[in-house]
């Protein structure tokens, strides 16, 4: 049975390693680890779920609508952090929709100077045109410890 966990020194490097089942942690290749602190371990440092723009009955013009989210002090001042985001819409009756699939809109996002910028761009004029029908344009996101 292969030795799968090593804490301390592996070769000339100190750290922590856990190998995949069946692989010897002391000899396996970089791609055969579950944990490898000799490489950057992909970890989440911040997450959120934010309302970017509320689309009501009244027409709103084509253009970009955005918000900014302050990030924790631990990443203050940092830019171009690695992140992922999911863009979706919620109707005021609670129904959820995939925004990119049903609307002429798209999401863009980036971090700069310790601030997360979330933008929704309307390629054409928006507005539900219907009384008492509104859509929240939202994004759920995670920021990882890594920079471009």
């Amino acid at each position, binding site marked *: 049975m292969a030795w799968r966990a090593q804490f301390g020194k592996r070769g000339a490097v*100190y750290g922590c390693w856990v190998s995949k089942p069946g692989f010897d942690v002391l000899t396996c290749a970089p791609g055969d680890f579950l944990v490898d602190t000799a490489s950057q*371990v992909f*970890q*989440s440092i911040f*997450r959120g*779920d934010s309302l970017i723009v509320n689309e009501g009955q009244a027409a709103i013009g084509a253009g970009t609508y955005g918000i900014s989210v302050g990030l924790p002090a631990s990443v203050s001042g940092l830019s171009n952090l690695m992140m992922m985001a999911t863009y979706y819409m919620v109707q005021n009756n609670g129904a959820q929709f995939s925004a990119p699939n049903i609307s002429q809109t798209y999401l863009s996002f980036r971090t700069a100077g310790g601030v997360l910028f979330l933008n929704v761009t309307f390629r054409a004029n928006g507005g539900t045109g219907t009384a008492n029908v509104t859509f929240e344009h939202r994004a*759920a996101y*995670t920021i990882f410890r890594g920079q471009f």
Partner: protein
Amino acid sequence: MVQRVLRGKHPSGAYGFWVSKPGIDVASATVMGFAFSSDFVPPVMVIQGSTVSGPTNGPGPFSASGAVPGAERTVNTIGYGRTVSPIPAAFGIATAPNWTLPLAVATGQLGYLAGRWHTHVYETCDNNTVIGEYGPQIVKTTNTQANQVSVNWHSAQFILVPYTDRIEIITNNRNTVSIKYLVLENRS
């Protein structure tokens, strides 16, 4: 040489396990200085897998109408078996032998998509390809309001849509599409 591994009590008072990047002292490292930190979670996978999506028959856009494969979108729904909040992030790749549009014409379109893996497909016909079944003016570069047809009839699609309890894999192709997908939680 700096100390790079710390297990137990950090000088700040917290207990855990930390490894800093080469050249950075683990006791004084800031968030970007760590190779690993027990203060943060790794990405948490919701589901991962592979599937195939065949064409969905629908009324054809031409005079010899009837059931035409790919004239309707195919929605392949895969549940997580639990609710994930906030909505997670979905990633996927898809390939097909070709992405022929749901037309009667024998000649293939979108040949540049064939046999390759794609992260997203939302393509109309090749530039300046004239599709007589819609009339002579339906081409990618010049079609405007005057000659609109259903987007399902003149586009190939592969779109991943995450929800809190499922993903919907949307394809539009006359052929069967092979898909690999991965859904990650938005969490920290």
